[in-house]
């Protein structure tokens, strides 16, 4: 069988797609492993994959004895959970504020003229610049992290929702008005559903930024979570944990994005069929 047709068959089958996706990471890990000597790389600064893996296993499944004080035994799931909860809370808050606000901004020229400039003016301020204010107001507490995630996720959500609401077909709104819809009906039953494809784009970007924000926040503003462990492990020279932590963050971001995609897939059936037919 020639290589081209083998590739096509791989691409079409579900398992084949996984296989294709695995080629690059597997190669990277093998190269990384091969480049290291004595389980280390870059003059001992970086551990090789096997060291990272065993550190990760201990971090995830190790049972700490009564006399051990190491924070890297059996604490992986807890820290993962803390970070995930913060992202979930901050993301939910960003949705609750961003989606309705975006819908109104896209729908009403007056509200947009009043509010949009302020949003555009605050938007360039990076999440890291909000850290001091967050610390000053909330201290070393959970909500400080949630606050930063909300700010980070808010902008892409509100901007994409606004865009989606602005691009709603005029004739859909006219049709709704002709059938006796009140402004609230137009907003809830026409503008919001019509903007959903854009909203989902905003959600995906926002969630990605949410994971960035939680790591930044945990490095400074709280004493738990993947971001805290990352910085803490660096200070005590545990680069194996640092790398295992990074891979965990990537995995969580990937998984949560996949969840949104699944949700989008089931909610936007009409949209999918539209692009299929058109």
């Amino acid at each position: 069988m020639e290589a081209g047709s083998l590739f096509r068959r791989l691409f079409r089958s579900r398992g084949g797609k996984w296989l294709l996706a695995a080629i690059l990471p597997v190669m990277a890990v093998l190269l990384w492993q091969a480049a290291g000597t004595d389980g280390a790389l870059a003059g001992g600064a970086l551990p090789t994959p096997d060291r990272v893996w065993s550190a990760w296993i201990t971090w995830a499944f190790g049972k700490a004895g009564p006399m051990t004080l190491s924070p890297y035994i059996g604490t992986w799931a807890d820290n993962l959970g803390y970070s995930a909860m913060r992202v979930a809370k901050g993301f939910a808050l960003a949705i609750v504020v961003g989606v309705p606000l975006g819908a109104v901004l896209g729908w009403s020229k007056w509200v947009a003229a009043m509010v949009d400039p302020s949003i555009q003016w605050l938007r360039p301020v990076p999440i890291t610049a909000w850290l001091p204010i967050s610390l000053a107001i909330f201290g070393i507490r959970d909500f400080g992290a949630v606050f930063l995630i909300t700010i980070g996720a808010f902008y892409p959500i509100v901007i994409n929702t606004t865009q989606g609401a602005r691009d709603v077909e005029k004739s859909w709104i006219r049709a709704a008005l002709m059938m006796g819809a009140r402004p609230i009906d137009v907003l809830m039953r026409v503008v919001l559903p019509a903007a959903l494809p854009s909203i989902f784009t905003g959600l995906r970007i926002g969630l990605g930024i949410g994971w960035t924000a939680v790591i930044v926040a945990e490095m400074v503003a709280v004493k738990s979570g993947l971001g805290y462990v990352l910085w803490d492990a660096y200070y005590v020279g545990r680069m194996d944990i640092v790398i295992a932590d990074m891979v965990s963050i990537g995995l969580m971001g990937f998984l949560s994005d996949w969840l949104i995609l699944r949700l989008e897939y089931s909610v936007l059936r009409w949209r999918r069929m539209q692009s299929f037919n058109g």
Partner: protein
Amino acid sequence: MGTIRFSGVSKIYGGPTGVRALENVDLNVAEGEFVALLGPSGCGKSTLLNLLAGFETLTDGVLSFDGTSISKPGPDRGVVFQEASLMPWLTVWQNVVFGPQVSRVPRSVYEPRAQELLRLVGLEKFHDALPVQLSGGMRQRVGIARALVMQPKALLMDEPFGALDAQTRLSMQELLLDVWQRLKTTVLFVTHDIDEAILLADRVCIMTARPGRITRDIAIDLPRPRSIEALTSVEFIHYKATIMAEMRGAHAHH
């Protein structure tokens, strides 16, 4: 119920140049009458319809519906749009009952009515289909059912069959004749198709562009109920010749 009265209506679109879409238009439509507005694109016939629907506001003149002036859209004037304009995320059924639902009509009232209308337009088997799964003609049937479910006093149709192929258009015209024969709602029908105007309407109002105005108002005395056979009758050809001459004449003035 369903009487329409345009008197001295003008519509000038804003901007420094100010496009005169309509100038001094007079038009009366009686209850249960079917009137076609016929003219080239850009003659303001859709503007006329949009004013009546309440989607746009007039610059000058008086426009009343059943004796009261129009301020906003409402379910007493059902609109059928050029490309149906169904909500693509709603099923056929959900599109049809959208109006009754937002207007707080009790389910026990609107459900049998909506079922009956879906049967009337021949879509009872497509209850749960999404608009994207339907052909253009079927979508426009839903558009008609959606407008009629609110039991409007007038039906405003903006080139509803313009995007359909010739064969589908004929069957839609037949369907509309059939529906109108039963309901006898006032209809204002915008089209650029001469045959369509004569076949459907009691009166054909010919419009010209820049500025948009009605130049002729021709009564069509073809017997009712009509079917597409009327298209080849001698009387039909006679009306067509008259209208074509009129439209060519109107064109020559420019």
